[in-house]
Each structure stands twice: as C-alpha cells, then as structure tokens.
C-alpha cells in the first residue's frame, strides 16, 4: 500500500512535531510513509473565506500531488473533511484521504498502538471530525488503549471551540466567548492535557489557555499515540 502523508500547511509550518509523530507512529505500525514534497495546502482557508479561484487552484494541485496513492493520511480532521466533502462540489476528484484515527482503526485495524502516556487527558472531538468525517468514538478508542492514560470526559465536548478559521479574527468577540466556555469546561475536568486531532483548534484553545496561564497543555492525538 502506498501511503502518503499530507502534513497540512499549518502543521508543516507551526507544528512539525505532530508530523514527526505521525511518521514515527505509522512506521512503527509497519507502514511505508511517503511525503510528496510538492504538497502545500488543501485550499480550505481560501475556499471557506470566499476566495474560490485561489482555493480551487490549490484543490486541483492537491489532487495532482496525491494522485496514485492508496491512502493519504493527515493529522487534521478539518483538512480531511475539506478534501472529502468540498472537492467533489468543485468538480475535483478527491484523493482517498484519511484522518489519522480513521486510518488506524478502519484501514490498519489497530486500536492498541503500543503507546504509553501516564497523564490525565481530556479529548475535544473538533467539529469537522465530529460532524464532517463522523469519526465518532474512533479517537477515544485509540486513547483508551494508551497505557497509563486516564481519559476524562469533556463536558459540552461536541460544541465548537470558536476557532472556525478566519472566523477567529472576523468575529473575535464571539470566537473568544466560545473559547472561554470551552476552556472552562476543560478546566472543570481537571485534566493535565487537552487532546484533539486538529492543531488549528488546539492553537486557538491552547493560545487562550496560555494567555490565561491555566497550566493545561494541548497535544495532538498523534503525539500521544507516539509517546512511549
């Protein structure tokens, strides 16, 4: 099976650790991972903000770059949902993208990835993973098998954190109010770590928590699953 990693522009630039964790995890599970270096961005920011021409160009480029792979694995539920849901509307045939947890559970059929992470963790499912990809309990099934990890439920988990891409700067007051409620719910769990499968949402929630000096860390799912 030819597996390609789509790192996403945000992870590539700001969160390379997540990409390294995905590579290390997939190799450990016996996958050969390719990183097509011509990749840049799926076009989500442009398309969702109303810049269709730029977004479409990026979508076509994405489809060319990842043409011929059996699976394109990405550590972003939002970008995966973008490719799967919106590309067909643009007349672009979507390559077979998988969010990391989908790929692990549905394709590799593993739940126990051999990770150990002895911490109290709560999980934010993120909107596009939840309502776009319908990941359901796949990410938490993976987390439950991590040695030493105590998974505590997040109240109001299914509610948006208020990131929403450019929404965060176009409607900052509402975005911040949504995040304030999310942070309060995270604090109520008493977790040391907030985990999610999307670094964009974590950048927003984590940035707010750091500003408030809460002491709660944010970690991408891949990094916990790669911890030993």
């Amino acid at each position, binding site marked *: 099976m030819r597996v390609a990693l789509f790192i996403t522009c945000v992870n590539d630039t700001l969160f*390379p650790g997540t990409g390294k964790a995905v590579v290390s995890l997939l190799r450990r599970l016996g996958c050969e991972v390719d990183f097509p270096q011509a990749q840049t961005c799926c076009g989500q920011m442009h398309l969702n903000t109303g810049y269709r021409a730029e977004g479409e160009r990026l979508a076509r480029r994405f489809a060319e770059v990842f043409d011929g792979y059996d699976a394109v694995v990405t550590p972003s539920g939002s970008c995966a949902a973008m490719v799967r849901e919106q590309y067909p509307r643009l007349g672009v045939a979507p390559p077979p993208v998988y969010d990391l947890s989908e790929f692990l559970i549905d394709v590799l059929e593993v739940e126990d990835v051999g990770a150990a992470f002895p911490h109290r963790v709560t999980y934010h499912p993120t909107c596009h993973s939840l309502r776009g990809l319908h990941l359901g309990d796949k990410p938490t099934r993976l987390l439950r098998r991590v040695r030493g990890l105590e998974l505590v439920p997040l109240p109001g988990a299914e509610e948006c954190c208020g990131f929403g891409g450019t929404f965060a700067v176009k409607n900052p007051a509402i975005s911040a109010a949504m995040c304030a409620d999310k942070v309060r719910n995270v604090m109520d769990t008493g977790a040391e770590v907030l985990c999610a499968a999307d670094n964009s949402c974590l950048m927003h929630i984590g940035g707010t928590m750091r500003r408030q000096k809460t002491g709660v860390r944010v970690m991408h799912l891949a990094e916990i699953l790669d911890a030993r």
Partner: protein
Amino acid sequence: MSVFIGMPGDFPTNAAKAVQNSQLRYNLRKATHTIRGKRATVVGELPDWPELRAAGKAIKDHTLRHLDRYLVQLEEAVQRAGGHVHWARDAAEANRIVTDLVRRTGENEVVKVKSMATQEIGLNEHLAAEGITAFETDLAELIVQLGDDYPSHILVPAIHRNRAEIREIFLRRMGDAPRDLTDEPAALAEAARLHLRERFLRSKVAISGANFVIAETGTCVVLESEGNGRMCLTLPETLISVVGIEKVLPTWRDLEVFLQLLPRSSTGERMNPYTSTWTGSTEGQTFHLVLLDNGRTTVLADEVGRQALRCIRCSACLNVCPVYERAGGHAYGSVYPGPIGAILTPQLRGLGSDLDASLPYASSLCGACLEVCPVAIDIPEVLVDLRAKVAHPRAERAGMRAAGWVLAKEVRLAKAQRLATRFRRLAPGRLPGPLSAWTDTRDLPEIPEESFRDWWARQERRGEGKASS
C-alpha cells in the same frame, strides 16, 4: 425584503456589543439549551427520523422544482373554495394589497396570528402609517410589541426577555394589567389572556401567515401552542393570510411528514397543541390569500442557495448555534436570525449593505445547524457559497492573494517558512492590523526551529528513514 430589524451595525460589531450583556447571555443560554435538550429527546424517540428528514427534503425539493405548477393549482383550489388570491411581487406590493383589503372592510384595527412573512415585509409598520393598528396576539410577539422591541428568535421572539422584564413591560404598556401583577408565569399569562380576549371579541379582521398551504385543496395550515391563533382564524369576518410562495405542499399526504418534523424540531414537542386548517371562505368569513415572492424566485434561481427555501422556520438551527447563543437575534439585523437567517437574509435582501455582507461570516462552520435541520439544509455549504459572492475588504484580498501565491509552489512555502524561522526570536507578541484580533485574547504559537518539510528533507538526505520520495 425591505425591513430592517434589530441593531444598526455589521454583525461582528453588533455581536461584540451583545456578548457583553450578561443578562442576555444568561437568558439565551438557558432558553436555547432547554429547547435543544427537549428536541434531542423527542427526535431520539423516532427510529425513522432520518427517513422522515429525507422525505421532508424530497417533498420540498420536488415542490420547489415544480413551483409554477403547484402555485397555479393552489390558486384554483382556493378560488374554488370561495377564497380570493392575490399575488405580491415584493413587500411594497403585499403591504398595499393588505392595506386595501383592510380599508375595504371599514375597520382600523386588526388582530394578528404570529407570522414571519408579515414581519419580513414590515406589515405592522406599514399599516400603522396608514392609520390601521395591528395587535399581535401570540404571547411572545405581544411582549415584543408592547416593549417597542424587535423579535430575536423565530419561534420564541421574546427569548431575550426574562419574566421580570415582561412584568415590567406589562405594567407599563398594557392598560388592563392588574396593578399587583407578579412575575409568576401563570400570572403573566393570565394578564395577557384577559387583555387579548377583549381584542378577539372586538376585531373584525385578522391577519395570519401559514406554515403550509396545500395545493390540491387550497388549505392553509398553522401550527401553534397557545390557541390565540385559532381565535384570530375563526372569530373575525375577514381573514387575510400572507404566505411565502415556498410554503406550498402538493397534497394532504405530504403534511403528515411535516406535522412530525416541525413540532419535534421547533418546540421539542411530539405534537403541538393547536393545528388549525382552513380552506377558502366560509359562512361568516371572507378569506384572502396573499402569495408573497419578495426575493424568493431569485433564491430559487440559485443552484446552491435555493435549498434555503426548504426551511420550515422551526428554529432548531438557532437553538444549537454557538454563535446565535452568544450574539442573540438582534445582531443579525433581520427577522430571520441565526444560521438560517445568515443564509436567507443576504439572499432575500442581497449582499449590498455592510450588515448583509457580514452575515455569511457569522458562523464558525461548525455544522451543528445542518445536523439538526429537519429538511437537511446544508447551511455551511450555502454560507461558503455566499462568502464567494461577497465583496471582500481590500487588505484581506491582498493577504489572501499573497497567501495563495506562496502556497502555489512548494519552494515559495519553504522559503517563507525559513524566513519565519530565521526571525522567530523577533516574532511579536501582538499582531498588527486586523490580525490583532487573534492576539487580543490568545497567545501565538512559537515558530519552530525547522519546518516539517525541512526536517523530512534532512532525514532523507541522511538516509535515516525508509521513506522514498
């Protein structure tokens, strides 16, 4: 659509003000979460909900595709039943038709059944200017009217008011309210009941909307909770119903689907207390149906946007929307607030004003609205489509073009990343311009020493990995 309702600024400005109002936040959160929970329970009881939802969508899509035919069929059926049919191209025409009909009765007072279409065209304001007083009879609409206020929710228009505020409004504006009125819900309802009973008995003309109109029989249908609507529909000698052309259903059989979808989605009830149907004129009552376009045919012509016409005004999308919950209805500046308003208002009114151009962005695209919509309107899809039609601010356009240029070639992206890495120590804590909105409440992530792609290239060169690229 001509009527402006609510706050005067664009959505972000209005929302930023509203979100500071802690009383409003509390009222909205309590009310939306209560209805949201009730809806989830009663929808969860139906094992065939997905099928019902698909049927609702299919019936609406079919009807909209053949709307020309069904509207003519409806007109013929209403006329056969002794009713009069009037066609209104826009708000002005509809208002003129209704005013003339009321004038012809010689009356200068009308009672009203809760109706979105008449609010959309600003009928009450128009009638007032013509010397005709319209009395709202839905309890919440009465509260809004007495308070010289605007509705902030489709189903519960006074959602932004709590009972203490309602008591205060009644004491101030309802002449026959008892002086010792308390803020107990039962006492408030009783005061309104006595006040309205007087109006029902006195009024000779009633104005309503309709939730559905059946083409095959010409029957209008209104679903309500209080029975006040039924008073208006049955007592007066003249009944005028203003109905959007998208409210048509082909047959009575189709109604079966919507009588299940609507109450469960709107009030979270298995069945609403009052369902009234009427067909044409009856002994003692003359009936007029005013069919309203007011932008709907333009919406119908839009391949993506037309799905908004499936809307049955249940408000389920408002009650789950995290943005509506914090901004409230007035921030949307329209009788249609919340997610459905964000796609309906700019389509009906156009994207010309700052407010209407900001509405497609009044969403984080979280998708909660689509999940609960009983006719499966893909609100995020329409929002994104509308965003592509908005005139974008110049600075934003320049930034997006630049980003598009960088992302068009991997070498450009790699160079930009290396540049960011080189100057990472100089990264400001606060961003300039519109991006300062990010750093006002959030810390920026640290720029890493090396991008992922540079790390990959380096480990490839070293031959560490097994990867081939």
